């Protein structure tokens, strides 16, 4: 499961970017996204993507996993790029670079920042219940992913899955999904009761320690400024 792999990267990394605060990283990623989506300059796009790749290398992210995740935006942006190829080769390449570049930026954030910290930051600005839903979804995902893994393993061991027999697969996967949903509903009911027992009244209090800026945060903010300046210059020139 990609979410698990990315989560592991974020939680187990110890690079300078892992230690940086959430606000500075969010600022950098936001600036990158705006620049990537907003620019029509192929070389600048290439530079930005190269820059993010360097960030990922410095943060010692599992590049194999990142490349795997990039296949989705690469493939789908290629489909749209084929349309743009009618205009020019450059236009088509820009589409692909934008798609993969934006995905790379968000993956950098997720690979260096645990979801918990992102939620903790957002909890100051979003409705408490929405943050709760994100947090619970995050917790529940891992529990369900384990369960699904066990269910699929059982099905395979018992001959219930065959890559060339879609009818059998559909029937069995429907059972798997049905069981999974049933278990998850019952689990969510139990969880709610337990949360009540523990005093849940809406809004999970989360520790927020991001407000102290460090030297690394300063560097990241400086890099963000450079990107903004570069993008603005290019907009003006273009």
């Amino acid at each position, binding site marked *: 499961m990609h979410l698990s792999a990315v989560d592991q990267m974020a*939680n187990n990394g110890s690079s300078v970017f892992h230690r940086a605060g959430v606000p500075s990283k969010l600022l950098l990623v936001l600036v990158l996204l705006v620049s990537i989506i907003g620019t029509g300059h192929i070389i600048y796009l290439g530079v930005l993507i190269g820059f993010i790749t360097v960030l990922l290398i410095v943060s010692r992210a599992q590049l194999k996993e990142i490349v795997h995740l990039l296949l989705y935006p690469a493939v789908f942006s290629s489909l749209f790029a084929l349309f743009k190829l009618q205009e020019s080769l450059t236009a088509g390449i820009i589409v692909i670079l934008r798609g993969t570049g934006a995905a790379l930026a968000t993956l950098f954030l997720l690979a260096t920042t*645990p979801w*918990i910290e992102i*939620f*903790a930051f957002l909890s100051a600005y979003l409705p408490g219940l929405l943050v709760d839903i994100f*947090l619970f979804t995050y*917790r529940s995902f*891992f*529990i369900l992913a384990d369960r699904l893994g066990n269910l699929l393993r059982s099905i395979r061991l018992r001959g219930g899955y065959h890559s060339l027999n879609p009818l059998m697969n559909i029937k069995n996967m429907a059972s798997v999904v049905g069981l999974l949903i049933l278990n998850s509903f019952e*689990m969510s009911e*139990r*969880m709610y*009761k*337990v*949360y*009540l*027992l*523990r*005093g*849940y*009244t809406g809004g*999970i*209090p*989360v*520790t927020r320690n991001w407000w102290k800026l460090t030297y690394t945060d300063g560097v990241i903010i400086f890099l963000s400024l450079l990107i903004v300046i570069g993008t603005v210059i290019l907009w003006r020139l273009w």
Partner: protein
Amino acid sequence: METLVEVQCIKHIYPDKTQVALCGLDFVVHEGERVVVLGPNGAGKTTLLSHILGLLSPVEGSVHVMGLEPGKNFRTIRRNIGVVFQNVDEQIIGPTVFDDIAFTPRNERIKRDETERRVMSVAKMVGIEDILEKIPHYLSGGQKKKVALAGAIVMEPKLLVLDEPFDGLDPVSKREMIELLNRLNREKNITLIITTHDVNLVPYVADIVYVIYDGKIVMRGKPYEVFSEKEILEAANLEPPVLVDLFLYLREKGLDTTVPTTLEQAKKQLDTILQQKYL
């Protein structure tokens, strides 16, 4: 001694229309007691706990916890009860271990310094002060149990309810858990209600034992009294602890011995027998 919990012949109907009843002897727990509820799978142990916690309300019978009906006074009751469920994954809420232990104090609007003091104190007591920044779903089963326990005792409850707390633990972790629970009972006077089907651990953590079978509370007594009733235990699909079984057998064969329930008692007894034999 104040009566903390009293349950009399309850009946409940689940959403899938399954009816469960728990009758027979009354279930009574006094303050400061360590009570173990023994029974095979499906006997009604979790149903009993759910009623005590106010998660279920009986359609017949009565449940009183600290003088109140838990189903109707849920918010009052829960402030004085800590709970550790069998599947701790379902009760760990906090994003980090610290956040999880601090969950209840924060929700009770306890000041930050005091919350931190309480969290550090229980974390140290339970032995998890070095993993406070960790993400719960990456912890081992034993560590998660400790986190759940810390979260359950952080508000210093009068009553601690544990559903199969030894499930899935290795022998060393089981011993640690037993020592911890006994310390909580001894030092903080926390009353314990523990369900388990691991009979060998019961003598180490129980003042009183209840045996449930097929929706009935069939026996109540001190560990030794309960485990001496081998026929009733067998009828309830249970076996006495290995030590008890062994010494009951020896007594049947004519050996003049009491029946120990713990290993230390058994060693002492064997020393006495051997001394008598060779002197």
